[in-house]
């Protein structure tokens, strides 16, 4: 369980090697180098438009880099079989993207189903996952439009976990939720991660979430990696951008506290 320390010598689970991505005349990412170790939760933190989603899509090859290489488990993903690669990586997309014509059960069971699992095993797996993400079993027969936003996001997470992938890409999976539900989901994520030890790349622009969930935080700005820090290092960092985040975060709390006393 405390195996994270030995990871320094192992092959990184995901590795970005000098990756650049250009589209429609915009340089979205440039000279990006980063390693994600097995079993860690790497948080990508950065403001809107800094290239976080683009980075995730390069991992499962929804996008192809203009230059540089991305290796998954040591294998360049330009050489991997794309369909197999994607099925081995769980992906929670920013807009959830549940299939509106499928029930919750079919949404979650899709990857196992196309992977040829027998029906009864799929059904059992769906029930197990619903429980894992804190949803009632009888939600299985509902359609996405019959769920609340928070329930939909949970289904999105369950769907990504369905075929038990070792890698999870999560693009603001808890965005657009009220703070209490968000807190609850974060807590469940931590509990889950303690059991499952997936390699997770987690996108957020919320510092509190990054500090809480990340083993390391990769700070991005305008398509570049600024720095990679542990949560503790982040709070003490002298990096101007990192300290700007911390300041903004602290000021929010402070001004609220001040208003309370006056």
């Amino acid at each position, binding site marked *: 369980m405390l195996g994270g320390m030995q990871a320094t010598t192992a092959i990184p689970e995901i590795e970005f090697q000098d990756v650049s991505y250009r589209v429609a005349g915009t340089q979205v990412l440039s000279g990006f180098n980063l390693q994600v170790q097995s079993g860690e939760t790497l948080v990508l933190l950065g403001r809107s438009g800094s290239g976080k989603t683009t980075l995730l*899509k390069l991992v*499962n090859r*929804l996008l192809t880099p203009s230059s540089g290489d991305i290796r998954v488990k040591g294998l360049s993903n330009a050489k991997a079989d794309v*369909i*197999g*690669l*994607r*099925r*081995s990586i769980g*992906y929670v*997309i*920013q*807009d*959830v*993207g*549940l*299939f*509106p*014509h499928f029930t919750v059960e079919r949404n979650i069971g*899709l*990857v196992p189903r*196309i992977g040829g699992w027998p029906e009864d095993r799929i059904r059992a797996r769906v029930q197990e996952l619903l429980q894992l993400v804190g949803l009632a079993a009888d939600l299985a027969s509902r*359609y*996405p*439009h019959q769920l609340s936003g928070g329930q939909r996001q949970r289904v999105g997470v369950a*769907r*990504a976990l369905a075929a038990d992938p070792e890698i999870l890409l999560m693009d603001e999976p808890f965005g657009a939720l009220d703070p209490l539900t968000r807190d609850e989901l974060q807590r469940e994520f931590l509990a889950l991660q303690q059991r499952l030890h997936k390699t997770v790349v987690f996108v957020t622009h919320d510092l509190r979430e990054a500090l809480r969930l990340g083993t390391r935080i990769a700070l991005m700005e305008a398509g570049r990696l600024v720095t990679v820090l542990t949560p503790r290092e982040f709070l003490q960092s002298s990096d101007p951008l990192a300290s700007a985040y911390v300041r903004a975060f602290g000021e929010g709390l402070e001004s609220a506290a001040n208003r309370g006393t006056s």
Partner: protein
Amino acid sequence: MNVFRYIWQNQGQVLELTLEHLRLVGFSTLFAMLAGIPLGIVIARRPRWNKPVLASANIIQTIPSLALFGFLLPVPWLGERSERLAILALTLYALLPIIRNTYTGIRGVDPAVVEAGRGMGLTESQLLFQVELPLAVSVILSGVRVAVVISVGLATIAAAIGAGGLGEFIFRGLAMVDNRVILAGAIPAAVLALTADFGVGWLERRMQTR
């Protein structure tokens, strides 16, 4: 003088011509779907082909129907049997709404859903058959509905080249200057159009995904 009495007295022929009419409409719609839906899928995938394909279907639609029947008459294998010819002409007219709606239906699927499917490792054909087509089906059907209603009307002109159908009454009535005879063709045709409109519309609503 009563139209309905006339129809009643000639019920055998009305029924026969109605069935002929249905054959013309049914086959042409079927062929238009077989050609139009794949074409719509192709242009949804390759936007570069979108303009030429839709423009061609559009041009066909602007040819006056009588002229189109006339153009096709000299075509060897077709000209011999006017029914085939009529079906071909009707098929060409039905293409545009079907191609266009297939295209719009597929393009209208939420990009987030398509991206989720692709990101989960669906192959292109799994994506098409399990996600895009099911989500586009009600839009496609509404194109089919338009095509059917147009066909029912246009098929009356097929009688001009001897392909039969309810148009026979209409042309005969025009020649005889007898409104009863015209209406004996026009009323069943209108009923057919309304029924088809309602029937396909019902299917469309049933297929509607939330």
